[in-house]
């Protein structure tokens, strides 16, 4: 029993899990508002991180401006994507909608590799790298910062859905599109905004991971890790997404611990969440907090 390693991995799990939670939240946002399962969520992280990296290294602008410009870009990008690609797909069978987002994922992943290469690139140093002592463990400040940003985003989401006009409109649309429309909510606007916000929030997550680990195409794997998280939490539950993300983050680190200490199979870190995913789908497909579909004939 290696307690300090276990503790270290669990802290890792919470930090990574919080990021999964953020990405899962933005995934659920799109699903709730426009009923689209977005397989290109990971590419949002990738694009956001690369754009920010490009602004900072090529144009040498201060981080805060680069960050804001990236957000502005992602806003336009998200809206454009919804209007150009997803809007014609409204009313098509679910297989087609899924396939379009898979096509988008393939396209943008290759595009990013073409434009920025396949190697991981470090962000220019933005914050001083130092470590602090937490429960007798050395934890880097960037990790603490990443956790803080995740929490800020989650609180921001909570505020957005509870108090802002657009957030309320989104919840109304998710509840019932026709009723929302008759109340004067522009459903098209809600769809476009949900993609824009989702793209922006994912980009923030992408930048955070980029600052910590460097930017590379591995970022898009977050988009796939999101599935165990959202299935665990329930596809249409924001709270579930956050919890699911945390659980998946903890789970993969715990699996890594078990593997490195006892089993020595290797690669459990990557695969364990998918085994859990299959099991969840078999016993409780609607997740912890999701609403169960009731079909009427």
């Amino acid at each position: 029993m290696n307690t300090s390693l276990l503790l270290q991995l669990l802290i890792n799990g919470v930090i990574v899990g919080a990021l999964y939670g953020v990405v899962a939240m933005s995934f659920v946002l799109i699903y709730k508002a426009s009923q689209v399962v977005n397989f290109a969520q990971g590419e949002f992280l990738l694009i956001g991180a690369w754009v920010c990296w490009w602004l900072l290294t090529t144009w040498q602008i201060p981080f805060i401006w680069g960050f804001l410009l990236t957000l502005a870009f992602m806003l336009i990008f998200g809206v454009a994507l919804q209007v150009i690609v997803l809007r014609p797909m409204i009313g098509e069978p679910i297989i087609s909608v899924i396939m379009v987002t898979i096509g988008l994922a393939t396209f943008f992943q290759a595009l990013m590799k073409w434009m920025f290469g396949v190697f991981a690139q470090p962000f220019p140093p933005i914050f001083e790298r130092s470590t602090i002592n937490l429960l007798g463990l050395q934890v880097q400040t960037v990790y603490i910062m990443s956790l803080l940003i995740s929490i800020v985003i989650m609180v921001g989401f909570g505020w957005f859905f509870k108090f802002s006009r657009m957030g309320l409109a989104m919840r109304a649309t998710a509840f019932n599109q026709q009723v929302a429309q008759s109340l004067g909510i522009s459903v098209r606007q809600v769809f476009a905004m949900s993609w824009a916000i989702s793209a922006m929030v994912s980009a923030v997550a992408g930048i955070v991971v980029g600052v910590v680990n460097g930017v590379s195409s591995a970022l898009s794997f977050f988009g796939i890790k999101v599935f165990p998280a959202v299935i665990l939490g329930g596809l249409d539950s924001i709270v579930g997404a956050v919890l699911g993300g945390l659980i998946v983050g903890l789970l993969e680190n715990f699996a890594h611990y078990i593997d490195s200490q006892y089993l020595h199979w290797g690669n459990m870190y990557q695969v364990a969440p998918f085994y859990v995913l299959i099991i969840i789908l078999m016993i409780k497909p609607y997740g912890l907090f999701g609403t169960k579909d009731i079909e009427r004939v």
Partner: protein
Amino acid sequence: MTAMTPSGDFKTTYRADTTIFPTVTSRNFAIVGIVLLLLCPTFMDRYWLSILIQIGYLSIAALGLNILVGFTGQISIGHAAFFGFGAFASAWFSNSFGVPVFFAVPLAGLLTTAVGMIFGLPAARLKGLYLAIATLAAQFIIEDFLARAEWFTGGVAGTMAEPFSIFGFVFNTDTRYFYVVLAYMVVMYVLATNLMRSRDGRALVAVRDHYLSAEMMGINLTKYRTMSFGISSFYAGIGGALYAHYLQFVSVESVTILFSIQFLGMIIIGGLGSIMGSLMGTVFMVMLPEMMTTITQALSGSSIDLALGLQDNIAFLREMAIGLVIILFLIFEPDGLAHRWKQIKAYWKLYPFSH
């Protein structure tokens, strides 16, 4: 042109409506097509033959996916995993047990069917996006298993596969192997067409169109969904086995999620729920990278090439093309090439009075 169906020619018996070929002409065309294909090795060079062989084994696997996605409406994002499993299984049978390759290929198909059914059983309870996610998980789990199981796949290093042989006659050149693939292709396509004419085939379509109504009409949903997974895995396994004995080397590297997406792209481009569409889509998908290569070679040295580095990034350009083609087809021609082909036929059938 008496053989061509005149307009207003209606079928009068049920049997006449469910023949494999709707008209005598279409049957003759199919036979002429196969004869032409048989003659291909006499005038084609190795490059084109290898492309035809590729189209052959990929189109078998694509047809399997089309039976699952297009006919039964069960989406699968893990088809490449089953394709790869079939490839490894066939190599494993012939390497470890000395099974002649001639028998190893169908055996690999059966083993893949068994694995497909195992994943198909939980999948029978799921549909739509839940199934998509479950098969995505299956892709990663099988990929991980193949990389890990050294006794079965040779691990990360991959494994060698013997060339196809029957009674001492070795099909070790492209020309010879072409006939093996062609034979398998014809058999598998005829089998699929026949399946769709039977009760089971119609049951699959009923499950896709409205599964609740299908269930009320006495169709066992679990049975047909699992069966569809099994059939699709069988096709994938056969395709994979043929791939293994063609290249005579299999590695885990080839069993990626991108490959699965490529299979989905094939059937979307060809046409969901169309047997010949699977073939058309495969031809398109195999030719796409070749076209990209031709275009970049034509542009090589020009200012566009120098500015964008087309030549060095051809692999990414191909991936982009795959993604882009999937998106464009879904937006502008969701019924695929098969539908376009039907429209062209309809136009000429009634020419010049097309309305």
